[in-house]
């Protein structure tokens, strides 16, 4: 009885705290840099301009304004296969002048990231890639796309159950759980060539592989020793090193930026909670999030935050916690994954994927119409 009262009062305390707290990072309109994009010249100008404007808008850093009112002006020329891009500041001085090669989307994305980096000093997300599960062809298959959902293509034709994708650095490799040979095994696909290799084929269930930030290892759940636990293997499989040892379900490991630690979900205490441990093993310590059901953690590339799924009242929400601080709900949905700027999240909601600019709460649907879309992963 007393315990029930305690947990109810903690919940109420937590709820009122959320109502009063401002977000930890607040970006007011005045914080955004005003930027004018002059329509690019050349035969590919209109197409490249459109992608560029969208990238700069989604980046969250800029207030796009008409020409001559911006603190910075972007211009250039684009002809099939190349872009000459230029950025000048309010005094007319050129702060960026560069040539890019590639198709219209590629050159626009590269230019956009350079603009973000030059003006704000932060990494851009426009050249990054995502993968996710979609059911457009019937069964669950793995899809690959630009960060904004464009150029989506199906990577697998397994006609079985293909799930839990994880992109490695630079989107060169993708690991996923495939049931097409009858069991849940982990496969790695070379994204450029499509070549695929089964790398983990142990007894029981093998799933939830997360490629390490340096691309050389994977953390995953394996049940071969009689319980679903966290193991580390090389990217190509090999000797699996066991890290956890509890009677519960350990799932969804996520790496710290330098690969020395993991956060994962474990229900050893009853309902699933987040735990943090060294990648050498040695037991995890629970993170106190204030929520009763926490899964799918994603560690931000700057090391400071973890995003995760929370279940409450029959629905799912995306929560963000500063490590060592408090957690707050940022969206309705699940399976959040950080972009390399540690500012944006992609998460699934209903049958869609959304891109969330966490500081200002702006959410944009980036993938829809591919059936039920879930389990996004985002390359660094």
């Amino acid at each position, binding site marked *: 009885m007393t315990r029930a009262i305690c947990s109810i009062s903690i919940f109420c305390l937590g709820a009122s705290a959320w109502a009063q707290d401002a977000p930890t990072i607040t970006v007011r309109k005045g914080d955004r840099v005003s930027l004018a994009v002059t329509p690019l010249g050349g035969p590919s100008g209109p197409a490249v301009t459109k992608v560029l404007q969208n990238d700069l808008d989604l980046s969250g850093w800029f207030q796009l304004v008409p020409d001559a009112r911006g603190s910075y002006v972007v211009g250039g020329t684009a002809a099939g296969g190349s872009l000459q891009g230029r950025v000048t500041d309010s005094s007319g001085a050129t702060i960026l002048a560069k040539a890019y090669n590639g198709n219209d989307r590629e050159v626009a994305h590269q230019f956009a990231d350079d603009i973000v980096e030059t003006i704000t000093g932060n990494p851009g997300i426009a050249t990054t890639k995502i993968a996710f599960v979609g059911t457009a062809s019937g069964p669950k298959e793995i899809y690959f796309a630009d960060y904004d959902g464009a150029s989506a293509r199906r990577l697998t034709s397994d006609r079985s159950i293909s799930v839990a994708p994880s992109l490695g650095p630079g989107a060169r490799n993708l690991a996923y*759980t495939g049931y097409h040979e009858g069991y849940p095994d982990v496969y790695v696909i070379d994204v450029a060539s499509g070549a695929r290799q089964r790398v983990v084929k142990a007894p029981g269930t093998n799933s939830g592989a997360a490629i390490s930030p340096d691309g050389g290892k994977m953390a995953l759940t394996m049940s071969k020793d009689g319980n679903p636990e966290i193991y580390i293997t090389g990217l190509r499989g090999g000797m699996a090193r066991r890290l956890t040892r509890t009677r519960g*379900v350990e799932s969804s490991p996520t790496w710290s930026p330098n690969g020395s630690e993991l956060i994962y979900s474990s229900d050893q205490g009853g309902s699933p909670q987040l735990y943090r441990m060294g990648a050498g093993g040695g*037991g995890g310590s629970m993170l106190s999030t204030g929520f009763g059901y926490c899964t799918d953690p994603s560690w931000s590339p700057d090391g400071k935050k973890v995003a995760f799924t929370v279940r409450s009242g029959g629905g799912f929400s995306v929560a963000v916690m500063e490590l060592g601080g408090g957690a707050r709900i940022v969206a309705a949905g699940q399976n959040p994954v950080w972009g390399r700027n540690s500012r944006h999240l992609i998460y699934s909601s209903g049958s869609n994927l959304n891109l969330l600019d966490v500081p200002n709460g702006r959410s944009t649907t980036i993938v829809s119409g591919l059936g039920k879309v879930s389990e996004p992963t985002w390359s660094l």
Partner: protein
Amino acid sequence: MKLSHSLFCAIAASSLLLASCKTKDQFAGADGDFVDGMPLPERTDGAAYLGGGVNKGQFAPVQFGFDSVEVSGSEMGKVQAVADFMRSSKTDVIIAGFTDERGTEEYNRGLGERRALAVREKLVGLGLGGGRIQTVSFGEEMPVAPGGGEAAWAANRRAEIGVVR
């Protein structure tokens, strides 16, 4: 005096050494217990729950409560039927674990596996060899009852038993 001092040092050093050996092998879970599962046997060539070589539907699936991996007393009759069959035959079984749709996908894969393992543990408790029992999880995939609602969810929270041909 000198001799007993060195003896003391030797005893202290060796007990420290023994203590460190012990903690290196033993590992406390959150509840302080040393936890060691029963390793699963290698897969049988040509038999996969999602492929061929496995007879399904011979036994009633074991049902589970919401978010639970416990095999309740009322379900033990089904486990007993499997045990009786396994005692009289030489076949292996594959236990497939499933969940309802109400968790997140990857956690549900783990929960389904834990359910399959729970049935395996009961069978071992009834005297069957763990080496004859494989497990696999499908999480929230392949529900037997489509749609939502308590009845469908309850039907989907299950462990099915497949008999290897």
